[in-house]
């Protein structure tokens, strides 16, 4: 009995039991549904074993949207609890678990897969490649992320969720103060998906450096590809720090080491430093691809080339360097003294300069343009003022002496949501709307899309601007309740109302997808937005080989040149195309990772060792496997091209 005791929820509530039942029912439903419609084979052949970057991108996209709703449910519960003073909706323990999972889910399992989705979908098409450099590794990246996310998400029904905050500071996250297995889930689930992220970093860098279309110089890459390139360079430098920190945290919790404990020579401050040496660059890993998407969208809907291409690239390079030099600003109040704080205060403020350059370049891109107010453009226009507010409050926080008053308050919470929501989330929704027709063959409804935009923007302002004020009034973050005497009540109610509008906004996205799937016309051609870069030069939907003939490139807007200046994009005869074979190994190996991770969480050593051996067997199999891929013959290409409406 004692063996099973550890899987029980340490702090149960009716809501958690209801979730258990719901999870069980949905799982049974999926299994029954797949069996009834005889879709197991289809699922395995077309999705679980695929190495196609477009399908992997779509799976990232679906996972990100799913996780957005999970993290959003957490958010709504928090705002509801704080809407009134002394509310009893959640108790302290549940509130702590919820804000912890909200943070982890939104950053690691929502924002990251969202940017990976766009990198996968867009980068190979933008550089005129047929796939990423290592397609099977790409599948492994995705499945590691996916199983990491699943492992994290079962925590609240098996053993208990982590409750030490998404930053998981030691010693609070150590065994003395976090006795449930929750923090084990945190350490191991993030580790598993983090390995996937690192692999994506290597994969994308190689792809961008080695697989560009003939003639495309580095300084002729579309801006999204540039942003993806730099973000992936940051990934490769930053994620190993997280990997090491998580290993140290795991051994502290499972094997009694003392890296971050307060006795026996351990140092709790070390975790905070490691975490933010990864954590701050992570912010730029998320925001740079978002900047890339905005650059594409603003340029397309202003019908103009991107203003200041070179300074756009330069500013991203500078941001990537500075992002590693600012981590201490997350704990100015740790007592490192005036000199250290002064240095990090200045480096932090310095980041606002290249960021400001980008803002001005977007404004100048619209200047003398011909601006069309489509849904993706609305997000990009809304992004500019809202993100500037998020940015300037960041400069305020960077003033370290004043930060002693902002730190750990709702002011900080308002700031980073103000940077991440208009910065990253709006970009992802803009990108989703913009690229939807390319991958699904129909447009999302503009009218519903516009109401989504207004709901989210107004909801965002109502939800987060009041926090600036309550923060300055002394409301600390992460408090599950407050007394009426504090006077925080009315503004928190406004926040809750705003969060409700945002929730409604996110629901309209799902409604939009359903509505457009039913009603939107399918004959949209390959370039519905009158866009400028290569991803729009191929068919819609994109054939498996992307381009029948490799595009010839001599500017950053080769496709625009082909439309306006008579540049000939595709030359020569069709040739046989070499493509990679599907493989089940990434899926199976990641599933074994899940088993290993779960065993580690509960310190079940026998299954853990067996699973680890399984992982090495998978790697060994791959090493000795001879797989030369397959060829698509010329006749087949001709047929596909004809079917898709004319040769490209």
């Amino acid at each position, binding site marked *: 009995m004692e063996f099973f005791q550890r899987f029980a929820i340490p702090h149960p509530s009716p809501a958690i039991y209801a979730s258990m039942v719901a999870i069980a029912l949905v799982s049974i439903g999926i299994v029954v549904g797949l069996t009834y419609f005889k879709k197991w084979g289809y699922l395995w052949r077309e999705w679980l074993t695929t190495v196609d970057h477009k399908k992997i991108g779509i799976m990232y996209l679906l996972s990100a949207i799913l996780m957005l709703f999970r993290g959003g449910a957490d958010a709504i519960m928090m705002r509801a609890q704080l809407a009134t003073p002394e509310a009893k909706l959640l108790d302290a323990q549940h509130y*702590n678990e919820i804000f912890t999972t909200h943070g982890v889910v939104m950053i690691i399992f929502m924002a990251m897969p969202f940017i990976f989705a766009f990198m996968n979908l867009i980068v190979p098409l933008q550089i005129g490649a047929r796939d990423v450099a290592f397609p099977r590794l790409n599948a492994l990246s995705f499945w590691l992320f996916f199983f990491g996310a699943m492992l994290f998400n079962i925590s609240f029904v098996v053993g208990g969720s982590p*409750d*030490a905050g998404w930053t998981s500071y030691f*010693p*609070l996250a150590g065994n003395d*103060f976090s006795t449930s297995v929750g923090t084990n889930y945190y350490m191991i689930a993030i580790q598993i998906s983090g390995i996937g992220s690192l692999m994506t970093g290597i994969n994308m860098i190689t792809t961008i450096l080695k697989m560009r279309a003939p003639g495309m110089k580095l300084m002729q890459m579309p801006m999204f590809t540039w942003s993806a390139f730099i973000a992936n360079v940051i990934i490769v430098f930053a994620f190993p720090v997280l990997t090491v920190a998580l290993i140290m945290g795991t051994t502290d919790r499972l094997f009694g080491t003392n890296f971050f404990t*307060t*006795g*026996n020579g*351990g*140092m*709790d401050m070390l975790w905070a430093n490691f975490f933010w040496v990864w954590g701050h660059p992570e912010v730029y890993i998320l925001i740079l691809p978002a900047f890339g998407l905005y650059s594409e969208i603003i340029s397309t809907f202003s019908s*103009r*080339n991107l*203003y*200041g291409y070179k*300074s756009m690239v330069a500013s991203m390079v500078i941001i990537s360097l500075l992002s590693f030099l600012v981590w201490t600003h997350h704990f100015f*109040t*740790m*007592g490192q003294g*005036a000199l250290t704080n*002064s240095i990090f205060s*200045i480096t932090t*403020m310095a980041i*606002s*300069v290249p960021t*400001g350059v980008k803002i001005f*370049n977007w*404004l*100048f891109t619209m*200047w*003398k*343009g*011909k*601006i069309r107010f489509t849904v993706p453009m609305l997000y990009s226009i809304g992004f*500019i003022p809202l993100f*500037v507010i998020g940015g*300037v*409050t960041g400069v305020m926080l*960077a003033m*370290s*002496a*004043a*930060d*002693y*008053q902002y*730190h*750990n308050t709702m002011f900080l919470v308002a700031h980073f949501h103000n940077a991440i929501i208009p910065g990253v989330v709006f970009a992802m929704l803009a990108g989703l709307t913009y690229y939807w027709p390319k991958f699904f063959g129909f447009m999302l409804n503009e009218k519903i899309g516009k109401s989504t935009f207004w709901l989210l*923007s107004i909801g965002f*302002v*109502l939800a987060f601007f*009041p926090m600036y*004020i309550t923060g*300055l*009034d*002394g409301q*600390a973050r*992460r408090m599950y309740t407050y007394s009426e005497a504090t006077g925080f009540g009315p*503004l928190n109610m*406004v926040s809750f109302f705003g969060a409700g509008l945002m929730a409604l906004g996110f629901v309209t996205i799902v409604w939009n997808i359903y509505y457009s799937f039913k009603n939107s016309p399918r004959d949209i051609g390959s370039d519905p937005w009158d866009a400028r870069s290569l991803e729009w030069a191929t068919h819609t939907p994109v054939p498996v080989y992307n381009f029948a003939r490799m595009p010839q490139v001599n500017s950053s807007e080769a496709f625009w040149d082909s439309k306006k200046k008579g540049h000939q994009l595709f030359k020569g005869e069709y040739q046989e195309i070499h493509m990679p074979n599907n493989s089940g190994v990434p899926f199976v190996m990641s599933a074994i990772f899940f088993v290993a991770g779960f065993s580690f969480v509960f310190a079940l050593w026998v299954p853990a060792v067996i699973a680890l051996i399984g992982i090495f067997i998978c790697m060994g199999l791959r090493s000795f496997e001879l797989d030369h891929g397959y060829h698509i013959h010329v006749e087949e290409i001709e047929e596909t091209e004809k079917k898709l409406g004319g040769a490209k």
Partner: protein
Amino acid sequence: MKRKWSLLASLTALVVFLTGCEPLLVLDPKGPQAARQASDIMLSIYIMAGIVIVVMAILVYVLWKYRASKLPADYEPPHVEGNIWVEAICVGIPVIIVAVLSFVSVKSNYIVESTPQGYEDQEPLVVYASSSDWKWHFSYPEQGIETVNYLYIPADRPIEFKLYSFGSITSFWIPQLGGQKYAMADMVTTLHLAADAPGEFVGRNANFSGKGFAENTFNVTAMTQADFDEWVEEVHETADPITEDEFETLLEPGHLGQMTFTGTHLDFSPAPEHNHHSEEDSSEHDQHETHETHEETDHAHH
């Protein structure tokens, strides 16, 4: 677009209405450190508001002037690569703003990290503020007094807080007297504060420390030096001495009301002062000794 701006305007009005009744704690300073921080905050708010307004003005102008519905159908936007001078201005002006703010920031850092301005000639009162789940223990070594969850300080005198924790990282914060600083288990941090006049203030742990975090607060009363001395005397007459056993029970996780003792726990459970930034010059040997004592007390917990 109009709808958006009118909404924003009404929102701002609402916020002003909701908060107009009382000044915000951080912007209502009662001591020199908080005053310096509040003035930095207001300065940066003004400059930042200026930036936001300029960007919004450019944005609205561009959107108005170059919206497709207003332009002739055959208008072809020009191809513009960029202009070195325009971009130099876009870099130059932010650099100047950042330079100004950096100057202010560095200056303020040194001000908030030293004895409050105007109080340099006075001997500071040293108070050890240590946190345990989820309480604050205030030890007055000079006065030989210890309190739990409330703090009496003389106004018009610099206070030097020595902060540390018996567990998770916490953050000692009295918004109206000055910004916060961490209290940690393996080192002592120093926070300089002062209250300009007698008054009552709220204080709390601002750093998440687990289940009882929300209620981890304390009350601060600043009084005249005479009243403070009187209080110290009164405590010595009425309060019981703190014992090691009793202190151990106080450290148990939970919440306590306000308590008063004579003596301090520092006598039998000294602060972990083997820190890396200690201003006192202590020899290597000394550090090692303190470390060992700390370890012993650590073992005693388990």
